[in-house]
């Protein structure tokens, strides 16, 4: 089998592979920066919690309208935003810490979702919601993902400064501006949006992977914020392409393949990353003069 057959022809020959490629590209553009900020804000696990919060909403949409893109998206968005905004508001208005407040909200959402599904007594096949079908992306889904990415990039452009400031020095931001709370909630909404966009391709739980793994990998290579965001995006897209090819050539499910490739990149970075990687610590080099 030639290199062409392995790497190029799947995309040339099959339209579903081209769609998947476009979908993964759009997802990476949004997930890269969002993941980088999640990590910098020490909210890496928040993405996971939000993914659980979205699940019931999407399931309810699925229950009422079947495998309907818009019903599931609307359900997921509603559940996710409710949890994100509710938890954010409670954390800021009371003495409750953000993580505890979020845990409370997403657990309520999850339990409520399970309850509603079981009340209907229907044995819903939620495999699609759980694991997504990146190879089955249709035009409508592609437009949805691209739309979400566009909104993400525009919103990030607006809240970039307060977002950065709130990470570095929240007290300072609060002393000069009231934009901290608004930008935080805007950012949480972006997390939800990107998870909802991602679940059609990767499933609710795995779509977090395309955010966190590339961001965590990039941290081993760059020290600068802009570089971090760019590198995360590139790693996310690279994992997407490689994952699709693995899935095509080896016949593995596409979603887990993409995330596992990203995981492999992360493992490599942990060992060989120039900034804080294990190899650098195990093989000490001579210290510098100054």
């Amino acid at each position, binding site marked *: 089998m030639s290199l062409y057959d392995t790497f190029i022809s799947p995309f040339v020959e099959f339209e579903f592979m081209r769609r998947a490629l476009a979908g993964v590209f759009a997802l990476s553009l949004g997930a890269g920066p969002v993941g980088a900020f999640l990590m910098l804000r020490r909210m890496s696990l928040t993405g996971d919690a939000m993914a659980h919060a979205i699940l019931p909403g999407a399931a309810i949409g699925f229950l009422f309208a079947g495998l309907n893109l818009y019903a599931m998206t609307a359900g997921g968005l509603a559940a996710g935003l409710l949890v994100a905004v509710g938890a954010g508001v409670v954390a800021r208005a009371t003495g409750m810490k953000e993580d505890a407040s979020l845990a409370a909200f997403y657990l309520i959402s999850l339990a409520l979702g399970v309850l509603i599904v079981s009340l209907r007594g229907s044995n819903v096949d939620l495999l699609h919601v759980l694991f997504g079908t990146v190879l089955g992306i249709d035009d409508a889904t592609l437009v949805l993902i691209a739309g979400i990415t566009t909104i993400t990039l525009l919103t990030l452009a*607006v809240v970039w400064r307060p977002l950065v400031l709130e990470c570095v020095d929240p*007290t300072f931001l609060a*002393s000069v*501006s009231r934009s901290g709370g608004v930008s935080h909630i805007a950012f949480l909404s972006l997390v939800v949006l990107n998870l909802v966009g991602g679940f059609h391709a990767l499933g609710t739980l795995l779509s977090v992977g395309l955010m966190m793994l590339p961001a965590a990998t990039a941290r081993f290579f760059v020290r600068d914020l802009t570089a971090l965001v760019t590198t995360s995006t590139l790693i996310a897209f690279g994992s997407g392409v490689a994952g699709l090819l693995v899935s095509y050539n080896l016949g593995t499910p596409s979603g887990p393949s993409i995330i596992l490739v990203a995981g492999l990149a992360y493992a490599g970075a942990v060992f060989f990353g120039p900034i804080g990687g294990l190899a650098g610590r195990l093989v000490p080099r001579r210290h510098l003069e100054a």
Partner: protein
Amino acid sequence: MTAQISFRNLTLGYERHPAVHHLSGDVEKGALLAICGANGAGKSTLLKAIGGALKPLGGTIDRHGLDPREIAYLPQGAEIDRSFPIHVYDMVSMGLWRRAGLFGGIGRADREKIEHAIAAVGLEGFENRPIGTLSGGQMQRTLFARLLLQDARVILLDEPFTALDAKTVSDLVELVRRWHGEQRTVIAVLHDFDLVRATFPQTLLLARTPVAWGPTAEALDPENLLKARRMGESWRDDAVPCSDAA
């Protein structure tokens, strides 16, 4: 002299327990005021309230038309995420927030201002250093450079010289004197009485309740210091509502 900030029977605290009790008085425009007192005497609480981060339990703070967000505030041991990938230059440039806001461009004149501020605190050559690689003193210099850029009429400093070496302290004190010369109002919480006596003309001695407020030599005389020490700290679960409360 006109007042910049006026307290009228001000009580501040947390969960109804007072941390600053019945404070009245005026901070004049261009004053250089030290706030002294034991730990738990309400000094940081008072700065927070002046900066607008804490609402009074009773009484009022009158800033005479000044928006709290126009007040520059350097909190004690500022909760800065030192691991965040940002450089000294960008950190200092945040001081332009009031002018640049969300989108405002940072032009040539601003870049000059940023460079001047970095030079004024003695950090030339550190512009591209990540803040995570700075020493405690260099970090505090960075924060002072940001204060310089904020160009505020009122500057609040909470224990700004704690855990710094003598050279850094004297450099930063020089900036405080410069602000005083520029008629800015500077209020600083300090523990070093020698420094206060040498640099700050006015002192407020707090022990939750104000003990003395006036020229530093009088406010910090032995009698007042003894009085402040006797008043000590108290926070009782069974405290009853204050009979003086309006």
